[in-house]
């Protein structure tokens, strides 16, 4: 195929997609309208289950099976990264030399580390009440730990986050979600059914299964991000090709 033919094939494909797009968008309700058939039902269901944050109710109650799939994707992605970026036979570890950190940077990072950690845990714990949840809060927690690398050096970070422990925690969060789902099955309802007492609306202990699933996801996402970044940091800072073994 020469260039002209390829461009024609591309043009036909683009025209087809454009046609379908326009056709699909013509039937969409207007932007910012007041008619939300799905939203109205989701809000009603969330209020019925005493979950103040409707998005959390959708993610961890009404469509919690979808979230199970999403967290499995994350788990698989991290597993793949760990396998691909492992220390190969022709690589060796060279501990990076500590760099000089500017005092202001160190002070800022050491002050913001516990604050960021607290914010992350807060976001995980309040997923059923306010915007956020296990996924967002977990990422904030993982980011907070890495402020130690900014403040001190890589060895300090390595001491704070033993990768095997976080890999185990990742698997634990994954399995916890599954087991919490099975609890619904054993309670006589269905998989991932919200069978726990729903609690008082807009308090920390409300929403039944939602805060527990949020915690499981929080553990999984935080450890997944830590393990993922550990692989990348190891590759960028520590692992070098072995001398005298060029391919």
């Amino acid at each position, binding site marked *: 195929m020469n260039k002209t033919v390829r461009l024609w094939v591309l043009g036909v494909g683009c025209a087809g997609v454009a046609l379908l797009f326009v056709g699909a968008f013509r039937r969409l309700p207007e*932007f*910012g309208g007041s008619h939300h058939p799905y939203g109205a039902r989701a809000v009603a269901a969330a209020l019925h289950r005493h979950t103040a*944050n409707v*998005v*959390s109710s959708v993610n961890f109650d009404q469509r919690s099976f979808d979230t199970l799939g999403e967290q499995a994707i994350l788990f698989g992605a991290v597993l793949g990264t760990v396998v691909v970026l492992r220390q190969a036979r022709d690589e060796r570890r*060279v501990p*990076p*030399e500590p*760099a000089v950190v500017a005092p202001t940077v160190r002070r800022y990072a050491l002050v913001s580390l516990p604050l960021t950690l607290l914010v992350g845990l807060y*976001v995980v714990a309040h997923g059923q009440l306010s*915007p*956020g*949840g296990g*996924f*967002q809060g977990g*990422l*904030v927690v993982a*980011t907070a730990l890495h402020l130690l690398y900014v403040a001190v050096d890589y060895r300090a970070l390595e001491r704070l986050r033993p990768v095997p422990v976080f890999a185990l925690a990742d698997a634990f969060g994954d399995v916890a979600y599954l087991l919490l789902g099975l609890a619904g099955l054993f309670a006589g309802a269905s998989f991932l059914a919200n069978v726990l007492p729903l609690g008082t609306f807009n308090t920390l202990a409300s929403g039944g299964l939602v805060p527990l699933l949020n915690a499981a996801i929080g553990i999984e996402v935080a450890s997944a*991000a830590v393990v*993922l*970044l550990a692989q*990348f*940091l190891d*590759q*960028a800072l520590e692992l*070098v*090709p072995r001398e005298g073994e*060029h391919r």
Partner: protein
Amino acid sequence: MTELPVLLGLLLATTAGTAAALTRDPVHQALVLSVLGLALALLFTLLQAPDVALSQLAVGTVLTPLMVLLSVRKVRRRPREDSPADGRGGKR
């Protein structure tokens, strides 16, 4: 006029997205990508989707650019180590 903030947010996101696509150097691109993540987070907030904005902020602004930067560092270091010249100083 109530849609003006959303329009401005859309404009910002498209500008940042185009800039990210047009930047050639991966290191600069990672920084522009982080700006794009910030613009998208702002847009999601304006569209009243704070949950998505939070995810976008964590993933698009922090995690992805950081992973790009670390990958670039790893890829760039190779040739210097393999080169026959004596310049083996730049380890850190």
